């Protein structure tokens, strides 16, 4: 890569640049680093959230790590992560590629697809809960048998609904990322392929997908790490139920901490959540190859 130094204006902006990071850093320290330290400290205590905090060493850790609820919650979390990734990624790539076209009707559709992203998760969850109500919902209202299932009352169905709603909410966002990615691909590649006689499908698999490699990694990181924090949506839709069929780690943490008044074990789960998130982010970075700055456009 060529050096950017030559394009940079001299003194002024360069000395200001680090200061521009200060607001973000202050917010990040206040809302992420400090609570993180607090949570870590709390994980070695016994506290009901109301009375005095007692230091209790590894009691909370032992309690959580031997609880069969933990592997279950971890399993549900990873399953939601994997299935929602597998549903969202292909659909987002296809939609993104479609929206990248310059035709006007595609731009209009792009705006329509964008709508779910503008709604709050809580509103989405409440709307779906009402629509899926087995007695007063859409299926019962329209008298359609297949639609009046016990959507949120049966473990498998409830899980599928959670994945569906999550995908419905976030596919627009990821499509947008892919749209940007596709528009970055040089036209010349397609022109060359066309001259060589490659069809549209061949072009998609031969050019578009490989060129989107880094976009896929970025979008997957956001999906995977973001799925660790699904809370509001699941909390309102199913409260982790039926039973504990959709009880993801974040929900388990909330239930232990704020409903069962076990702040120690809840903090342990919070620490586990952070560790899992970090590990996943690092892993995905590795998958992206050693040199993430390497160009995909060699020789263009």
């Amino acid at each position: 890569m060529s050096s950017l130094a030559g394009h940079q204006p001299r003194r002024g902006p360069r000395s200001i640049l680090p200061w521009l990071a200060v607001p973000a850093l202050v917010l990040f320290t206040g809302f992420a680093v400090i609570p993180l330290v607090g949570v870590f400290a709390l994980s070695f205590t016994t506290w009901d959230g109301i009375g005095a905090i007692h230091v209790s060493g590894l009691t909370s850790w032992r309690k959580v790590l031997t609880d069969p609820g933990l592997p279950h919650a971890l399993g549900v979390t990873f399953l939601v992560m994997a299935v929602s990734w597998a549903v969202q990624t292909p659909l987002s790539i296809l939609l993104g590629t479609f929206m990248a076209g310059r035709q006007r009707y595609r731009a209009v559709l792009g705006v329509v697809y964008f709508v779910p992203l503008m709604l709050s998760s809580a509103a989405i969850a409440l709307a779906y809960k009402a629509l899926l109500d087995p007695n007063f919902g859409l299926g019962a209202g329209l008298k359609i048998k297949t639609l009046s299932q016990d959507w949120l009352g049966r473990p498998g169905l409830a899980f599928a609904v959670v994945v569906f709603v999550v995908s419905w909410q976030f596919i627009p966002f990821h499509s947008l990322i892919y749209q940007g990615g596709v528009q970055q691909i040089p036209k010349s590649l397609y022109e060359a392929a066309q001259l060589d006689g490659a069809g549209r499908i061949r072009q998609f698999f031969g050019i578009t997908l490989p060129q989107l490699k880094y976009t896929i990694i970025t979008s997957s990181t956001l999906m995977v790490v973001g799925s660790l924090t699904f809370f509001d949506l699941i909390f309102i839709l199913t409260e982790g139920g039926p039973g504990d069929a959709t009880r993801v780690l974040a929900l388990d943490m909330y239930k232990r901490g704020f409903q069962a008044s076990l702040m120690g074990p809840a903090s342990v789960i919070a620490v586990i959540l952070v560790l899992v998130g970090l590990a996943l982010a690092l892993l995905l970075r590795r998958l992206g190859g050693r040199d993430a700055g390497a160009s995909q456009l060699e020789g263009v």
Partner: protein
Amino acid sequence: MALSRRTLLGVAAGVPVSAALAACGSSGPGSGGATTYWYLNGQPQEGVRAGAVKAFNKAHPDDRIKDTTFQNDAYKTKIKTAIGAGRAPTIIWGWGGGTLRTYAKAGQVEDLTPWFEEHPEVKKRLLPSSFAAATVDGKIYALPGETVQPIILYYNRKVFDQVGVKPPESWDDIMALVPRFNAKGIAPFSLGGQSRWTNMMWLEFLFDRIGGPELFQAIIDGEKNAWSDPRAIDALTKVQELVKADGFIKGFSSITADSNADQALLYTGRAAMMLHGAWSYGIQQARGGNFVSSGGLGYMNFPPVEGGKGDPGNTVGNPAQYLSLSSKASADQKKTAKEFFAKGVLQDAEVKSWIDNGSVPIRLGTEKLLAAAKNADFLEFTYDVATKAKTFGQSWDQALSPTAAETLLDNIVKLFQRSISPKQFAANLNAVTSA
């Protein structure tokens, strides 16, 4: 670079939930300023509570109370967080029992025993049975208020007539009614199972009717393996038999009580019966069109179980609602709150509003008012159930500590889904309630 942006992203993504939850407390009032009072929303109860505050504020323009309302299930979490963060409202609305005990043990609520000694007239005008859940180790930590709410077996008379059956007089009758209603495509029982405490009411009655109040008392007292008592296992098995026989509405696991959908099922005739608190009467009256006024709603105490030793007159539910005083409040706030306790709570106008809305206030000597009320039949029935019961059991989730209550509610859901057996249920709970 040691920390990449993605690493930071990962950290940031993991934290917001806890950070956001911790931040919840910050919206509460501090220890200075106005006297604050948090309570539950939802009509018609919300209107009565707000009315009492409004009347008090009108009479005390210089010591006004600022009230804020919350949804039932959300409030249970919110209030705990606020108290833990030292940002409790001056007046804490609650259910007494195990949660109040936690507050009292942590020194978060004021001991009101001396205040009651100074104001004997307040204690004298309230139902004596309402004080048990306000008392921790012999000291009174809350003022009982509002209404007595036994759990009642409601039924839809129109549906019963349509199918040609009579209300159940025993557990066997209940089991015999189930196939009759199912055959007509009507759910025997409505149930808002996602709210969890709704399922719990079934166990409360079955435990009492089969084993008497001693059975649950042994659990409260922390006796070892109290849940494994054969009578307890019998009650747990009976409830699973009812689930298995399709006794509850299809999809009960995803119905919430906060949305009143369970009650809508009863007044729209999709379900024949429902076990619910006395407060449900007012809701059905307000939302059910002419269902209540046309005599569609029937009600009775839970029937006896064959061979059980519990008195069929016993009941369970909320003996009252409770107002505590935050010990963190300023002297001025406490003064205003105590003035409200003495002159603002359960005054004549509030008593009348409760009665008009179909509830029985815990003030003594209201028989005449009840008899003259629009809903006299139901009110006198509730008053009789509440005052004549040999034992008025407090709702389990309120009687137990919050930690034990959470395990209880979680396992109750699994029991109703039949994903655990009665024996597993008992083992899971013995682990948290044995002292």
